[in-house]
């Protein structure tokens, strides 16, 4: 299992963290942040593998967004910057925000015109047959499909195993977005997950098992973030080793 650490590109402390780390393992970046940031290239160069999220959920709730324009810009970005170590690009899954699935498919079409590495993200409103179809007829060249890992959003905890087994039975790899819960990661062999818990923890005054308190000074903030990111890397190694016999890659 490869755990992609997310939110590094959007961290104000990125430059300080980046100075101290020679090589990253797996990072997930959001197009929403990297479209206007030079952190993207630095992270890409030093990472082993990268996933790019559309950033569709990063907009403020209720804000009017020209989704077609945003998607076209995302597609152009993909076309311009694609390279081998980028495993894939998540689609514009805005249906949970109330947009019809047909509209999502139209946005998906825009992305697919520019890349064969688009990862569809299944949500419950699409129905279970749609998940099966995603696995039987994958659009990603390496057959990557995605589900969501937020508790009780799309999938009950006890059902994750069946989604994974179904994807694997159809020779697909499965990513679980935002799945950070260790009780699930220890039991269910997702191929890929992403986690920003390293950052969340440090914002709450924790660096791994060390409690640093929320009142740490601004000057020390990048130190805490750096140690938190290292803890995240330890988690990447832990889960890679734990599941390596199952996945064999």
């Amino acid at each position: 299992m490869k755990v992609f650490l997310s939110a590094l590109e959007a961290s104000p402390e990125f430059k300080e963290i980046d100075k101290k780390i020679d090589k990253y393992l797996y990072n997930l970046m959001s197009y929403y942040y990297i479209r206007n940031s030079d952190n993207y290239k630095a992270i890409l160069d030093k990472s082993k593998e990268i996933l790019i999220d559309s950033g569709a959920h990063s907009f403020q709730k209720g804000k009017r967004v020209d989704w077609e324009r945003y998607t076209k810009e995302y597609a152009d970005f993909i076309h311009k910057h694609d390279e081998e170590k980028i495993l894939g690009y998540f689609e514009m899954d805005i249906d949970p925000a109330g947009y019809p699935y047909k509209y999502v498919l139209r946005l998906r079409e825009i992305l697919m015109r520019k890349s064969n590495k688009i990862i569809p993200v299944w949500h419950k409103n699409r129905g279970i047959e749609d998940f099966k179809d995603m696995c039987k007829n994958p659009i990603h060249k390496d057959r990557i499909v995605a589900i969501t890992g937020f508790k009780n959003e799309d999938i009950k905890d006890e059902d994750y195993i069946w989604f994974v087994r179904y994807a694997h039975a159809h020779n697909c790899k499965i990513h679980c977005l935002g799945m950070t819960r260790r009780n699930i990661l220890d039991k269910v062999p997702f191929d890929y997950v992403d986690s920003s818990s390293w950052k969340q923890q440090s914002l709450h005054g924790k660096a791994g098992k060390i409690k640093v308190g929320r009142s740490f000074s601004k000057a020390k903030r990048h130190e805490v973030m750096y140690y938190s990111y290292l803890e995240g890397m330890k988690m990447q190694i832990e889960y890679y080793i734990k599941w390596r016999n199952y996945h064999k890659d």
Partner: protein
Amino acid sequence: MSKLKIEYMNVNDLILYINNPRINDHAVDVVASSIKEFGFKNPILIDRENVIIAGHTRLKAAKKLGLKEVPVIRVEDLTENQIKAFRIADNKTAEFADWDIELLNIELESIGETFTGFDEVEKEMFKSVEEIEKRLDEYQAPKEEYFCCPKCKYEASKEEFKK
């Protein structure tokens, strides 16, 4: 090749290797369950000084179960360097073999609930494609969580409260 000789030693006379590169505390319980179910069938390997070469988890499990003695095999035909290498190789080489899922599933089903080290979720991983399909067909979306306002007792979804 010299023949192996099994002897029995007091658990307190065995010494854990200080640089053992295996993380095994989380595995102690499952090994203890195995010993409880089947007995101590796999002797611990030790060197001339009673330092463990292979079997750190088994020793911890034996102590947890309150065993006074365990079977050991003393390795006397390896150099210090070979012992260090074997300590790693014994664990590493075990990782290379794979499960034949079809046969494993048949075996697991034939023994029912008898302890094997596989938990229920892992056993579900070995189900047939038809069974997986059937389980997915039974998919039900999680119920929306409702929250209650502590003041006015109004009930609504998390989303509505966010607004």
